[in-house]
């Protein structure tokens, strides 16, 4: 397993946090996700055989938020 912290821009409240945690949290290979509104980031524990920092960041972008690999 591997852990990554991704930058997330565009969230304004707890419901934004929730929708990202819900959607990304159910992707294959995602073990755990914690999104912080204050720190504008997402910390994800994942299985490298299914996900990568790039694929996770891409998935957040797909949802309409801006995501960066370097926090």
């Amino acid at each position: 397993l591997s852990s990554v912290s991704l930058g997330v821009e565009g969230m304004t409240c707890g419901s934004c946090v929730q929708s990202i945690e819900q959607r990304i949290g159910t992707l294959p290979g995602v073990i755990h996700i914690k999104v912080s509104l204050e720190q504008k980031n997402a910390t994800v524990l994942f299985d490298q055989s299914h996900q990568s920092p790039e694929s996770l960041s891409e998935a957040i972008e797909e949802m309409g938020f801006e995501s960066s690999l370097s926090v």
Partner: protein
Amino acid sequence: MDLRLPAKNTFTGVFEFKKHEFEVAMTCEGCSGAVTRILNKLGDVKFEIDLPNKLVWIESDKDVDFLTETLKKCGKDVKYNGTK
């Protein structure tokens, strides 16, 4: 001086697409911002968002199923209300 437009210019107007109305369960500026970014990525759509009424109007040649799936990417419930 002849000011008549050449005939070939007659049909260069913007194509009119139907305006589709969708209800998207947006609750905050984060949601409407996400919907905006998602739709902007499509490139060829004109749209308006009414956050208080949770409505999104889209003018596009894309079909309703495609637009519905696209809107669903934001993680919110999406309902199609028809054309306006």
